[in-house]
């Protein structure tokens, strides 16, 4: 492979990418493996359905739990996997420009005739590829499980679900990148981004605690990912556009700051 900032960054992210990818795949494998066992026992299925009923008061209507796509979506894609992917995006976007080692490397690279915007974009593109590969591997796993166990998932909707997940993760990555450029500290970037993730989660869950606060959800990034059961309903393109627009705003803001700041 031709050496570039992109390949250098991709190589440095290889280990965490494999670990997170394997971890999420293992979790999804467990979830898809559990469904046939639960569906086989009506009492257990009823208990699971009623347990999720109270959770759905917080998450919004994510569809029936006891169906192949409902089970996988509610257990995996409603909260655990998006939060894990967001965390991955934050942790590794925060290290792109704000660790000491990265600063030293950037000093060496930018002493070359390399524009700052290109350096930043190549680094970010490597992270975007990692996120897309994680989502693609989850899609492949879903497709495989669907064919093996005849779950009857819609492959197109699966792809759209994973696209929505990738967009959510990109949004967090863009935000962490911009904060990292601004603060120049990985620790402060992670603290600030995780704080915003927690606030986003609270804003999304708050209407479940108290009625009449539905508008709060629109302030949460999660609202633009969670929109009913995406596995059966497909993607809300308007929400996807919001995620794309926000990602772009974060990355462009980071880029402008990076172009004008001291290294």
């Amino acid at each position, binding site marked *: 492979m031709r*050496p570039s900032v992109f390949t250098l960054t991709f190589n440095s992210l290889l280990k965490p990418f494999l670990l997170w990818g394997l971890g999420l795949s293992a979790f999804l494998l467990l979830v898809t493996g559990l469904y046939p066992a639960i569906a086989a026992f009506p009492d257990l299925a009823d208990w699971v359905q009623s347990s999720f009923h109270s959770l759905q008061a917080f998450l919004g209507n994510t569809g029936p739990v006891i169906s192949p796509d409902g089970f996988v979506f509610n257990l995996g894609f409603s909260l655990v996997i998006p939060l894990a992917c967001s965390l991955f995006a934050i942790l590794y976007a925060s290290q792109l420009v704000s660790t000491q080692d990265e600063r030293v*490397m950037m000093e060496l690279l930018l002493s070359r005739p390399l524009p700052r915007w290109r350096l930043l974009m190549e680094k970010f593109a490597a992270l975007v590829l990692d996120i897309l590969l994680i989502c693609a591997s989850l899609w492949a796993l879903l497709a495989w499980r669907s064919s093996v166990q005849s779950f009857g998932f819609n492959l197109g909707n699966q792809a759209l679900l994973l696209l929505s997940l990738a967009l959510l993760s990109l949004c967090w990555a863009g935000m962490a990148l911009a904060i990292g450029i601004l603060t120049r500290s990985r620790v402060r970037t992670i603290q600030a981004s995780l704080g915003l993730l927690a606030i986003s989660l609270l804003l999304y869950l708050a209407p479940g605690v108290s009625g009449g606060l539905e508008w709060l959800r629109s302030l949460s990034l999660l609202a633009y990912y969670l929109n009913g059961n995406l596995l059966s309903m497909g993607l809300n393109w308007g929400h996807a556009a919001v995620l794309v627009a926000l990602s772009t705003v974060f990355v462009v803001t980071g880029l402008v700051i990076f172009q004008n700041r001291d290294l």
Partner: protein
Amino acid sequence: MRHLIVRAEKLTKFYGPQRGIEDLTFDVEPGEVFGLLGPASAGKTTTLRILLDLVRPTRGSVYLFNLDNRKNSLLVRRRIGYAPAEFPPVRRQTGRQLLHLLASFQPTANYSAAEELAACLNLNLDVPVHNLSVGGRQKLNLVQATIHQPELLVLDEPSRCLDAEARLAYSRWIHAIRAEGRSVVLATSSLAEIERLCDRVAILWAGRIVSLERVIQFKSRLLRRVEIRFAEQIPLEPFMAIPNLQDLTLERSTLRCTVKGDPDRLIKTAGQYRVSDLICKASNIDEVMRAYYEEGTYAA
């Protein structure tokens, strides 16, 4: 217009309220080795980073090859080789692979010159970077700076962590660069490096230039602590007549003194007696700064 490689005018950088450098004005001519000498936090690295457009000055301007270094940043950086003070601990890449990466941004990369320098420095380019010793990484740092045969080399503490043999090769390399008509700006806190390699030196203290002079003038200010052991008792009077000796003492047959500048008269006077041992210790950067302070050159 006079062709200058570097022209820095009233260069000032404040980090918030803290002064990095203030009102630095200097130039570097073709074929010149220019030294920035100063203790830690004097502003040497900030100055070099401004030259490379890595740090933006609060005030002042820099022209490299008669081009504004901010407006023509990419153009200018094609013609500069930079060895930063720290070298990144790159993982999973050999020195050669890293050189290929860095060379990919330079249209005029020339591996043979880099490999020649690596051989002179006794550096194996096929060892993974993270397995290199600190000295090995510093050698690689110097090699990567020269991969495109730059017209100007900007080196930050270049001889730090180099072993004696590598220092010698490095000195020869700098002399060869000067002989080719290329220029070097090097920042160091080593007086010996300035004496050995530079044509002119700017002495920095707390972000300001306290002196900008030719190295030959600079040498005349240097202090050396000398201890001469004689094989016999000697009189002190002949040594007292030497004007550039300070702190002169004679204890039994051991003479101790501090020589400022040229040691010729001391050596000739001592040569009249039988010398059994001679120890000479060059002054350090703090002593040089103190000397400037006492002369009233330095104003904070």
